[in-house]
Each structure stands twice: as C-alpha cells, then as structure tokens.
C-alpha cells in the first residue's frame, strides 16, 4: 500500500508537530484565520489525538480583518480544548494605526511585525508554528522547516541549519526562538484538496458571492465596514468576487470569480494563471520585500 500524496504530506506535518512538542517547551500556533491556519489547526488536532492541543493559538490582530474572519475565529475559540490568545499592539491601538492614513507598510509593520514580537516576548513562546509554504514565494523556497530567529527575532539566512532526512535539530540558546512550518512542502492546491477531503471549515470569503467592491489601482477592494473612506464619486459596486488569500480587508485584493463551492474553487485553481500572492498589496512594495520583512521578524 502506497500513501497518496496528501497522506504523505499529512503524516510529515503531524510528525513535525509531535517533534516540537517532544523536544521543546512553550510552543504556540500562529493562527491567522486563513485557509493555511485552518489546515494547520486541523493537523495539530490530529497529531495529539486523543489528547487536547498541548499549546494555545495566537492571533496577532490588527482590528482590520474582514468581519467574516472574526466570526470564524470566535467560533474556533469556542471549541472545547482550544485556548486562543488575541494580541493587539497597544501602541498601534493608541495611535489608531490604519492602512488609510499610515499606508500599508507602516500598518503592517506596527500591527503585525511589532505586534508578533511583542506577543512572543510577553508570553515567552520559544516555538511558533506558522502556515508558510515553500511554494508561496521565491525566498520561501529555501526556507527551513525549523527556522531559527535571534533573540531580536531576526532571521539570518546564512545561519540556518541543514535539514536531512526527517531529522530536525531543535536545540537553541536561551532567548532564541524557532519558527516551525509544518506545511513547508504543501502547495496551494494541496491545501484546498485537503480542506475538501477533510471537510475543514474556512472563511466564506474564499467562495464567490456578490460583494460591495471599489476598484483602486487595479485592485478590487471590498468595502467591509463603514471605516473605509470613499473618494469623491466613488461608489461601491456589487461584483461577483472571491479571495485567494485573506488579511486586512483594505490590503487584500479580490478576484472576479464564479467559484461558489469548494469543488469549483479547486477547479478554478487548476486553471489559474496567476500566483496566490498577486492579490496581496504588501508584496509589491519592493523586489524581495518579503525577504526584508522576514529579516525584520515578519512571519
């Protein structure tokens, strides 16, 4: 009997979760509510069954996520055995940092990058699981499964450890931390096929519906609440759209689509001609911008 590719990926991810819990103390799962987080959480439940999750979830919030995302997050947090920590950068809250007045770069840095560092320091987490995949972006293709960060949360590409066979070295000095990526070898299509196979709940924004949209610099933005300032003469128009990735609603572009079900989304994906990150506004800042963000401590 040969395992199917999804079984093989699943087993590999489960083994990674168990290895971290066996070898380290104080881990956390970074839960960003998207499809990758959903799969990550599902795999973690499998890894420790019949026991409960041996670590909490952490959502580094920005107050600017889609309303549908908050709804799913709260549902997940209410499940038995789940402990969810929500962190809001108090400085960002005090200054009212938002993508409209401060721009996407400042917004992302203060809420997400600084917020994540604050939360990791506050709770003393030594290991943080993340849902990053190697197929997402070029600088990720070389990322390790166990990615080491200095006590300043910086990522040094030259000081990462070789990973052979299924052997991971989780030893670290005091103050250092590890980001662990159990989905490293998954592709976007694998994630969707697994969600379908396992019937994992995801945010409905991934499926096409009529939604109020404004078009700015080629990006289709959804007017998710009244905080979105409209330019003179700008009126939201109902368009049939869905999202390939989810983040802060003012920074996440939708795609026009008729894919209303999981099967249709997978079908659309197989025919897709553009990569997943196309809809993300933050990646366009500068070439290699993801890598710079990573070195500074962005996930």
């Amino acid at each position, binding site marked *: 009997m040969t395992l*199917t590719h999804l079984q093989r990926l699943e087993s590999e991810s489960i083994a990674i979760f168990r290895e971290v819990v066996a070898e380290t103390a104080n881990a956390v799962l970074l839960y960003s509510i998207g499809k990758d987080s959903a799969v990550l959480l599902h795999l973690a439940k499998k890894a420790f069954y*019949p026991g409960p999750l041996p670590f909490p979830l952490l959502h580094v919030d920005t107050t600017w996520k889609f309303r549908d995302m908050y709804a799913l997050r709260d549902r997940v947090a209410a499940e038995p055995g789940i402990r969810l920590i929500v962190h809001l950068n108090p400085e960002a809250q005090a200054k009212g940092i938002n993508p409209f007045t401060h721009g996407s770069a400042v917004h992302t840095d203060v809420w997400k990058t600084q917020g994540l560092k604050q939360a990791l320091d506050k709770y003393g987490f030594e290991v943080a699981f993340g849902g990053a995949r190697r*197929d997402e972006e070029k600088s990720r293709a070389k990322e390790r499964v166990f990615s080491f960060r200095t006590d300043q949360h910086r990522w040094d590409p030259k000081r990462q450890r070789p990973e052979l066979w299924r052997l991971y070295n989780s030893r670290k000095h005091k103050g250092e931390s590890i980001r662990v990526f159990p989905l490293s070898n998954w592709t976007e299509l694998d994630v969707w096929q697994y969600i379908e196979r396992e019937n994992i709940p995801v945010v409905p924004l991934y499926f096409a519906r009529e939604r109020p949209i404004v078009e700015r610099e080629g990006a289709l933005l959804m007017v998710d609440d009244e905080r979105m300032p409209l330019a003179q003469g700008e009126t939201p128009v109902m368009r049939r759209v869905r999202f390939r990735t989810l983040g802060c609603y003012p920074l996440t572009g939708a795609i026009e689509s008729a894919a209303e079900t999981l099967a249709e989304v997978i079908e659309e994906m197989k025919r897709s001609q553009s990569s997943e990150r196309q809809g993300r506004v933050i990646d366009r800042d500068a070439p290699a911008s993801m890598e710079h963000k990573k070195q500074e401590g962005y996930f």
Partner: protein
Amino acid sequence: MPPSPPTAGTPPIVRGRPDAPAPDAGTSLRVEKSLLRFNTCGSVDDGKSTLIGRLLYESKALFDDELAALAADSRRSGTRDGEIDYALLLDGLSAEREQGITIDVAYRFFSTERRNFIVADTPGHEQYTRNMVTGASTADLSVILVDARKGISAQTRRHSFIVSLLGIQHVVLAVNKMDLVGYDEGAFVRIEQDYRGFAEQLGLLAVTCIPLSAVHGDNVVRSSAAMPWYRGPSLLTLLERVELDEFRVAQQPLRFPVQWVNRPSPDFRGFAGTVVAGQVRKGDAIRVQPSGRTSRVARIVTFEGDLEQAAVGQAITLTLDDEIDVSRGDLIVPADQPAEVADQFETTIVWMDEAPLLPGRSYLLKIGTRTVTATIAPLKYKMNVTTLQRLAASTLELNEIGVCNLQLDRAIAFDPYKTNRDTGGFILIDRMTNDTVGAGMLHFALRRAKNVHWQALDVNKTARAAQMGQKPCLLWYTGLSGAGKSTIANLVDKRIHAEGRCTYVLDGDNVRHGLNKDLGFTDADRVENIRRIAEVAKLMVDAGLIVGAAFISPFRAERQMARALLGQGEFIEIFIDTPLGVAEERDPKGLYKKARRGDLKNFTGIDSPYEPPENPELRIDTTNTSPEEAAEKVIAFLQQRGTFEAV
C-alpha cells in the same frame, strides 16, 4: 531561450492554462496521486536550470505573473541576452543574488495527472557537498546532468558518489544538449557505456540514461522525433512511473521510532510516531528496543478512528497490551525481527560546519527520535570524492567526507543505513553552538561492541572509598600556561597527602612524556589528549583516589566531556583565572616568548583560543593571590563538601 509552447502529444497536465486539456471535474478532484521527491545534480553549464524550468513550465507549475517577473528579472540581469534565465527562478534569496552566489537548497513543486513532485535543487558551487547531501537525503531518485559534448566529468563522478553514499536507489543520467551533437546516437551510447561502468563500481544498480535537449524539450516531457533511435521513456514519463523508495522499505520488518508519549489521562498511554519500515497490525507481537521488553499491539489510534493496520509513512499512535516502560527514542519492532543494538559503529560522516571535526571530541548524535552522546574515534580515511581515493586525515573540514568509528554513551537500536535511512542516518550537533555540524550513515556495529561486555566487579568504588575514609573526586585545574595550575595542584596534593589521604596528580607536561607522547598541539590532538586524561582520571576516581589534574584544557567541550564521565559532584572544575598579561609576564618556561617569536605554534592565548569556564565550582584569580593562599581555598572547598569524611 524560452521554451516553445507544448504541442500535440503532450501528456495531459493538471494545473493548467486554457490550452491544457480540461480535467474532468467530476472525477479528477478525487484522484489520489502519489508523491515523488527527487533531486537534480549538475551545474548551470549543463543546462540544469533550463531543464527544471522546462519541467515546471510544461507542467504548468509556473504562473503568468511568475513568468512575467522572471522575464523582467532576466532582462535586468542580462545574463542570457534578454532571454529567460531559469537560473534566476531557482535562485531565491536577494542576498545571494546580489553576490551572485547560491548557498542553499531550493525546493520546487509541480504535478502531473499521475504524480506530484518535489524537486530539491542545489544551485551553485559553494557548499556544494553539504547542500547536495541535504537535498539528496529525502530523494527517491536523482537526476544527474551531463553535457553531451563533454561526457562524464569529474563533477559527474562527484555527484554520483554522493548519490550512492546517500543510498538513492534510482539514478537518471540526463545526457543534455543532444541538439549540439546533432542528436547523434553514437555520442550518447559512448557516454552511457562510460557511465554504466563507473556506476557499477559505486554499486548504483538502477540507472536509466536519457538523451535529451532541455532547451528544445526533446525527451523531457514527450519523446523526441529527432532521436527515433531512443526507445526509452522521456524524463517525465520515467519520473511518473519509477517506484518510490517507500515501496522497498514497506517489504521490511516493522520499524517504529517512538516520537512522543501521549498521556492525556491516567487510562490512556499511547506511543506516537511514524512507521519508517514495514507495517504494523493490531495484535502483533512487538519488542521495544534497546530494552528488549515484549508486548502486543492493543490499538492503532488515529483521529479518524482505530485502524486494523498501518503502513510505511503513516503517523499513528500505538497502545500496548502491557504496562511496559516505553519512552521517546525507543524503537518498536516485531518481537521476532528486531533491529541490531550496539554502541560502537563504523560510519561515514559528511562534515557541514566551518569549524573542523575533531576526533575525540564528543558531539550530540540524533538518530530517529533518539539523541545520545557520541565520541568520534580517529579517522580511518577521508574520501577524495572525485577520484574515489582514500586519503589519510586527522580532521574533516567543511564539505569533506570521511570514514571513522563512533562510540556512543549508551546502546541504541539501528539498521545499516543502506537498509533504512531512518534507522541508519544521523546528524551530529555541536554541544556549544547547537548547530548541526555533520550528517552520517551507520554501516555496521563493531564486533567488539557486541562481544565486550562491562565486567561487574565485586569490590566497587564505594567499597574502596569507604576503606580509605574519603570521598573520591577529580580536581580539574584549568587556565592559561603560567597561571599556576601545577604549582597549586602540587601544594594541595602535598597538604592532603600529609594528612594521610590517598591522592594522585596528573600533570600536563608529565603525561606527554608517556601516555600521550604521540600527540602534538593541534586542536584535534588537544582534544584527544584531554580525552585520554579524563578516562585515566575516571579510573583513578573509581579506585577511590582524590585526583588532581592540571591541564590548560582550553576547550569547554572537552572539560564538559570529562565532567560527564564522572559521577554527580565528583568533578570539581577549578578555574585558575590569570589574565594573559600576567601569565605572559611570569612566563616560567619561556614559552610565551617562543610563541611570540613564532617558534611555537598553536599556543593557547597567543594563536590558539582559550574558552574560560562558565560555571566553575571554584574560581581563583592568582594576580593577587599567592599559591599557598590558593591551595588553602581549594582545601577549604574540599572540607566543605565532605571529601575527608568516610562515604
């Protein structure tokens, strides 16, 4: 040059553009495919990047925006005169791109209707061995590229050696650039014959040679019309059909390394892990190694419910019929088909760290889910990976490969690496930096490990110490040359000997006249020097003595090793902390002057490092302390710990 678009005859491909055949929505969603991991070896000159680029392109794994970005990058870098340069695609980190070097392993993904693929590519020449070994460690198959115009090169031999070392079962020799030799069958056959002879020497059995042109796509995805004389499969067809390594290990007896003990409640105790060989069924009689205890499998627990059986690659949780002691690192095997158990092995080691491997030093060794301490015996030889010659060596530098014996601090269960990668492959971890410094393969257990057993003696350390009315210990004096270690050790010894205690002093200079006269002052020899002294001191402590050892012992790792050899509280590290300036001023043997003149190499403090203790039991600064006062402090410490009272 950019690949030409696919034409009729292209195998149907899944993730597609509109020109690809439409997958059948009703059934293809449910098609469960297998996963093949392979690696590619060769340089950009052999057309490796073009080949991978073409596989990705033809299997529609490149999106339009990625292609557009690649085209823009190619124009900017100008390396291919404006044509698409696939090397840029596989070359991820901007730091590396700016310096024009690549130092790592990149993973890329693509799929066809039959299979999903993960390609590990090791670009560049720097750190090549380390990266290729890493990429190859998880591969089911290796694609080795050669240029049809050049044939088998030194590099081809190097790649093939590493592939054979890593135990990869299937090798594809991709003879590229056939277009540049006019698609000539003779040229291909000569290269194939050359290579098969060499591959046989290495023990590579399943070798497929394919003539291809990555630039034009011949025999990459579809069979080439330009080479009708070639009847074999195209590269992609072969990749789709080749047997996975999983298949081979599935035939072997069960191997299940216990990864984590799951105890959510007092009435559930499960052993979580991944099956790395064979299969396990409910009710199977099993043995837990190395302890050898036996039991039966009660349940195979998963999130989806209990299973009747589980196969290679599955992550499961086992419960057993009996409450026997099982912990992380143990290996569960069939009761009647156990793995070998040993603590001494012959191994091949690939060194991956800037600091060289030092025989005699102890490293952490991680194999499966078990981590133990390993001491490396002097190297038998290192390999010239190009000529396959064996060379004499005392250390291994970064990217070197050598063969040596290895001694563990306790016995482990294992299989030879060539039987199973997961129960025979290991990494070495530096205890101080925590870095992964090496990777290795266990070949076989040394016979003496199996046949030489520890002889339990009736008169033991406690009995001997009781007779002497003292608690044995090892006083380890460390510090720079001229700090006063020997003087203080001698004074302490005189004082306690006068009080009727049984003592001995091991002195740095003295042991080099006998036991260690074959050793010099290189880092490797210093490590071995300390290892031998620590073992001798251990025997003396076992004999009940109060032992003094006065050695510069500059490295923390070796002092740690000596500490680990002794019992709790028996190792007393005394740091004779004298600033270099003061020690050099004293220079009792005139050694600093010699070292400064350059007449004495590897002198600690001058051109060889001293790593001060982080938490010594006692620290004595001799700048303003006389040797007599220092000895007084040591004796006071000994009194306080009860050394002079009966056990």
